[in-house]
């Protein structure tokens, strides 16, 4: 497929009718969490948009993010969006390997310098550069080199966005996020472990449609998808408000679909689109399947206390501290109290008799 084609032309070449294109735009608007009325705007923009070159780098990661995006074999809408871009380098997906692959990356960079989109999944080790290398190039060097010519960077997955699991305490590799290392490029974080696939493509679609990066929150995430917490959009929220909670995974409350807060749900502090966009083509999401939210789209979710510990419970053993404190307090209190008592008794003992002659001041 020629890179000079617009997206509209590319789709038509694939035999997609105008009606199909409009349907695609409606679905895309929904995917981008834009109001449905935006579909014609998207259509007009995509019609003319050039297919951008995309370079995808994978560092310390599990390939889950790529899996999330590509798990479907048939041309889904996300797939189509993906197909309309020119994925010039993705070492998991591309056929080329070794030097040829690196050559493709260098070629794409040179050809589209300043214009390509860099997608990163995985965190970057900042400790020993040997912790993770590709074709002998350390992750850090490759990121710096590739980022230099990018128009924008999309950090896909929590590892790239915030360090993720490699960054978890004690962080043996010194894993860092893209935004820790690159500061002179617009970076869009698409966290999640993995992120919802339509969110990844939604961000790409936004870039394709408007040529700009979407509005971001203070953690660098697109507000359109991460603007509201799981808790706020959760269909089980009414139970939280009524105080109806599942206490265990197999009690009546769990069967009735009551709130999972007490089972450690991190929904209240987690910002993601799971509760409305859902997973597997809108089938369901973890809470709907009866499992508390882990908070995977938040920084350091791995270190945020136990997954099954309620959010409000302390991470430390307060009980033991309190027990020791009572003991220490009792000992100190009795000691200080005894000192008080002794002082008071001594005062009584040393009392100088006050007679009627002592009622006026001496000289």
């Amino acid at each position, binding site marked *: 497929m020629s890179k000079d084609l617009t997206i509209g032309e590319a789709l038509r070449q694939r035999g997609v009718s105008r009606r199909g294109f409009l349907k695609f735009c409606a679905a895309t608007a929904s995917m981008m969490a834009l109001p449905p009325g935006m579909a014609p705007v998207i259509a007009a923009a995509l019609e003319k948009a050039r297919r951008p070159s995309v370079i995808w780098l994978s560092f310390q990661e599990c390939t889950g993010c790529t899996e999330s995006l590509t798990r479907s074999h048939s041309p889904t809408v996300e797939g189509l969006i993906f197909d309309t871009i020119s994925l010039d380098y993705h070492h998991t997906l591309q056929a080329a390997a070794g030097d040829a692959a690196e050559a493709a990356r260098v070629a794409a960079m040179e050809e589209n310098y300043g214009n390509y989109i860099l997608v990163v999944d995985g965190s970057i080790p900042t400790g020993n550069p040997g912790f993770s290398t590709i074709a002998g190039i350390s992750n850090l060097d490759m990121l710096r080199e590739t980022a230099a010519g990018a128009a924008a960077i999309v950090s896909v997955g929590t590892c790239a966005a915030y360090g993720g699991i490699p960054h978890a305490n004690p962080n043996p590799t010194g894993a860092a996020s893209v935004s820790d290392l690159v500061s002179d490029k617009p970076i869009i974080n698409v966290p999640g472990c993995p992120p919802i696939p339509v969110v990844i493509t939604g961000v790409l679609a936004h870039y394709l449609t408007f040529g700009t990066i979407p509005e971001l929150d203070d953690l660098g995430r697109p507000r359109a998808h991460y603007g509201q917490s799981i808790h706020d959009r959760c269909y089980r929220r009414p139970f*939280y408000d009524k105080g109806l909670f599942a206490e265990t995974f197999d009690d009546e409350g769990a069967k009735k679909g009551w709130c999972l*807060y007490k089972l450690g749900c991190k929904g209240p502090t987690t910002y993601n689109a799971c509760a409305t966009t859902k997973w597997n083509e809108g089938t369901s999401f973890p809470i709907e399947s009866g499992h508390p939210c882990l908070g995977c789209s938040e920084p350091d*979710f791995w270190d945020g206390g136990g997954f099954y510990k309620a959010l409000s419970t302390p991470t430390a053993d*307060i009980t033991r*501290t309190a027990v*020791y*404190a009572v003991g220490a307090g009792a000992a100190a*209190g009795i000691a200080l109290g005894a000192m008080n008592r002794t002082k008071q008794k001594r005062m009584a003992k040393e009392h100088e008799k006050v007679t009627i002659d002592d009622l006026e001041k001496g000289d």
Partner: protein
Amino acid sequence: MSEIELFNWIRGPALQIATLIFVVGVVVRILEVLVLGRKQDLSEARGSGVAGGLRTIISRMFPDRGTLQRSTFNVIAGYVFHVGFLVTLLFYTPHILLFRDSLGVSWPALPTPVIDATAVVTLIALIAVLVHRIQHKVMRFLSGFQDYLVWLVTFLPLLTGYFAFHRVVLDPQAMIAVHILSVELFMVVFPFTKLMHTFTLFMARYYNGHIAGRRGVKT
């Protein structure tokens, strides 16, 4: 320190430090009072001092008519913020979970909209008592730095809790962190200030009622 590290520090070590200061401080201050003791009363009792003491612990929860009429605002606003504070503290689900986790006991929660409304009423009552403290000539006269400090450390947990509940001002994680931090401040300040009345008022009422009870006076 990343935000979550800070958050975990606040929920972990900081909470432990605050708990330590709070518990040691409260126990010390209670014992400091109790161990001081008092002399046995040698006068012939007309009534039971113990019964009087116990009765006064309860009866002082209710103001006499004259006080209610003369200080209606002070009494009502005082009631509202005390009850509101305790309701939000003790009957909000996340708080109950905290107690269940640290004390091993739990009890039923109130619906969150009720807690939400209670918090608003309590905040208003607290602001009202502050304004009252500043405007009322006796209260202004009696008040010193400690009184305003105690007001602040009582107000902050409610305010930050309310913000955290509604996810405003800061992002919720940070707001919860600030909320917990404000509670820790409350706990640290507690043993050194008049907040101790939470515990010592039972002793004070008992002693007062005991003195009166022996004389056959109902207080």
